[in-house]
């Protein structure tokens, strides 16, 4: 970035910050004064009024998880996990001798507010990275903000793939990571006739595309594929249809409350999990706690992490989490990613050494960074997605999962797995 450019961008940034927060009127006004009178002539002075970038000062990072509204159920746990990681890092001396300063915004489960708050974190608070959000809708709302400002968004959630931004660090699984072992395993153990049920939006549809391709290769079939509206809670019709179709596996991509309602009603309808198991890509300890262990017992989930996974890192993580948030708090595959992504960030920043700390520099340094996460050692790939350790688990009556299959090796993320000819590379999306 040239010096002239630097001055100009700052001018705009300070003005926007000025508009955004009137309370700091005086402080900002003086900064604005400094910029307008000296900015164009002496950009070096600007650096001294930039607390974020000053050597030795705290590193501001944004936390953008909804603490209110409908998504708060999940995002509060992600927020908690990120805060735990930040606290642990700060207790041990911070990142390269600098404390992390978490700046918390509550986007209230509303996509437009996500974009607005992300802008605030990036422009006003000068965060060099933002950690946030659960739904694809919120990620897509934040995307233009971080791309325009060339900032970095650390997104911990499993998602549908088919995205290749150079400004998002994807910590969760994409379809191939969750399914390429799961679907053949289910087909072999229970049969090849799958009933696909999901909520009606992009994630379940993309997951089911991948599932159908895998089934096709195995000579299986999707006997029925259906989508119910988000928040749908009456599954008597669906259950009657499952009874009539008699599938070998119910392949489930329902989310949140719909998943809880479906599983409770499915269980109450008297299905035997040994005969008609529900195989879910989205069900974690949180949903199981809400539906009751009995309802979930005997059914399957595939994810890179389960709370019951045995590893020293996971034991330490669960213990620290419960010490901080109460002994009935549960960890799950998204909160685990929210936790390890902060450590990935730390390693990437430390790798930069004395170089200037900018979001693009952190991104470039992060490729190849490996962190021993609670699920195992995870590595950031060139496409900014993470290589993970998928596991297949069966739920027990006590609300915990018993891990039946652990992949032999890390599974690489292929965000365009179902779209032949498209590849997510270090230069962005390539189409053949």
């Amino acid at each position, binding site marked *: 970035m040239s010096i002239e450019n630097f001055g100009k961008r700052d001018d705009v940034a300070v003005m926007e910050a000025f508009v955004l927060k009137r309370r700091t009127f005086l402080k900002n006004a003086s900064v604005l004064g400094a910029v307008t009178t000296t900015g164009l002539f002496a950009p070096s002075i600007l650096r001294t009024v930039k607390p974020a970038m000053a050597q030795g000062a705290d590193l501001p990072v944004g936390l953008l998880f909804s603490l209110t509204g409908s998504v708060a159920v999940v995002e509060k746990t992600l927020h908690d996990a990120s805060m735990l990681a930040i606290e642990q890092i700060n207790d041990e001396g911070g990142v390269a001798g600098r404390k992390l300063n978490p700046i918390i915004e509550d986007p209230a489960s509303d996509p437009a507010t996500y974009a607005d708050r992300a802008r605030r974190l990036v422009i006003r608070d000068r965060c060099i990275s933002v950690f946030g959000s659960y739904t694809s809708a919120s990620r897509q709302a934040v995307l233009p903000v971080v791309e325009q400002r060339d900032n970095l968004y650390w997104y911990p959630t499993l998602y549908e793939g088919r995205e290749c931004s150079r400004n998002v660090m994807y910590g969760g699984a994409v379809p191939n990571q969750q399914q390429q072992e799961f679907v053949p395993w289910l087909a072999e153990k229970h049969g090849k006739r799958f009933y696909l049920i999901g909520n009606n939006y992009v994630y379940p549809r993309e997951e089911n595309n991948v599932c159908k391709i895998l089934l096709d290769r195995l000579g299986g079939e999707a006997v029925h594929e259906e989508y119910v509206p988000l928040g749908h809670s009456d599954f008597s019709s669906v259950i009657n249809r499952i009874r009539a179709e008699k599938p070998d596996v119910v392949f489930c991509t329902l989310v949140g409350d719909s998943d809880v309602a479906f599983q409770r009603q499915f269980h109450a309808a008297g299905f035997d999990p040994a005969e008609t198991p529900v195989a879910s890509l989205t069900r974690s300890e949180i949903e199981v706690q809400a539906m*009751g262990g009995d309802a979930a017992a005997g059914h399957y989930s595939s994810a890179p992490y389960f709370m019951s996974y045995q590893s020293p890192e996971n034991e330490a993580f669960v213990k620290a989490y419960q010490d901080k948030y109460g002994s009935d708090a549960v960890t799950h595959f998204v909160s685990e990613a929210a936790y390890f992504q902060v450590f990935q960030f730390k390693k990437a920043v430390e790798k930069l050494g004395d170089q200037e700390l900018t979001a693009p520099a952190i991104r470039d340094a992060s490729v190849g960074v490996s962190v021993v996460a609670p699920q195992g050692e995870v590595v950031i790939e060139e496409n900014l997605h993470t290589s993970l350790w998928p596991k297949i688990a069966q739920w027990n009556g006590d609300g915990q999962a018993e891990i039946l299959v652990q992949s032999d090796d890390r599974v690489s993320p292929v965000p365009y797995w179902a779209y032949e000819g498209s590849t997510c590379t270090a230069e962005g999306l390539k189409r053949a």
Partner: protein
Amino acid sequence: MDSAIFFNQLFAGLSTASILLMIAAGLAIIYGSMGVINLAHGEFVMLGAYATWALQTFFGLGMLISLPLVFVAIGAVGWLIEKGIVSRLYNRPLDTILATWGVGIVLQQAITLGIGSQSRFVQRPEIFDGNLFFGDLVISNYRLFILGVSLGMLLVTYLLLTRTEFGTKLRAVIQNREISECYGIRAERVYGLTFAYGAALAGIAGALVTPLISTTPTMGTTLVVDAFLVVIVGGVGSLVGTALASGLIGEASAMLSMIFNDTTGRILLLVAIILLIRFRPTGLIPQTVRG
């Protein structure tokens, strides 16, 4: 085979209808008698679910024992809200909508802040575990129980309105508040109790429906939308109309879901309701009381 699906769906529709009826009954009574569109109704349902959860988690009480307690507790909340807020707005119907909406937000956020936003687990009564099998027809005992309770509730409410002194007074107040007051009926007390009764019904509905779905601070919002549809189709304020509309909407959504799927079924149902209120704006059985 096909007839099995049909009869299973028929029962599913009946079950949906019974849940709708329970939630909509309180709404219909409050609107019918007081002219108050209670947008906090869904939150009363939610409070009923949380009261059941609290009694189960902290006092170890089963759902069946909790039901009378929930009825009284949510009735009391309703009574307080009527006394504190709604009673001051009787001549300003639009403001009541806004005020009850605000009350709903306050209740929802109070639960979120106090108990947390994560979904809670409520155990259903164990004696209703299991299913009845008639050949290929499968009937869930618990859904059958809900059906029974909602029909019982309908009957009790009907008797309350037609066979008791309170009911007579309420009907008098509905017809003409001023003249009733001249005869010594204390209208504000009648209103307070009516609102409390409507809220208590919602509380019971919440307690019964929550083992089928999940208990979250926002659960009432989705449930109450369907209840409003029922009230609109049935004819506002008519108890018989509400029962009829619940049955119609429950069965229609089950049948449409069987023929198409749940999403398409829902769309077609809403289209049908829009057409219905276009040609019959007062609903199936409109109120025929002289104003």
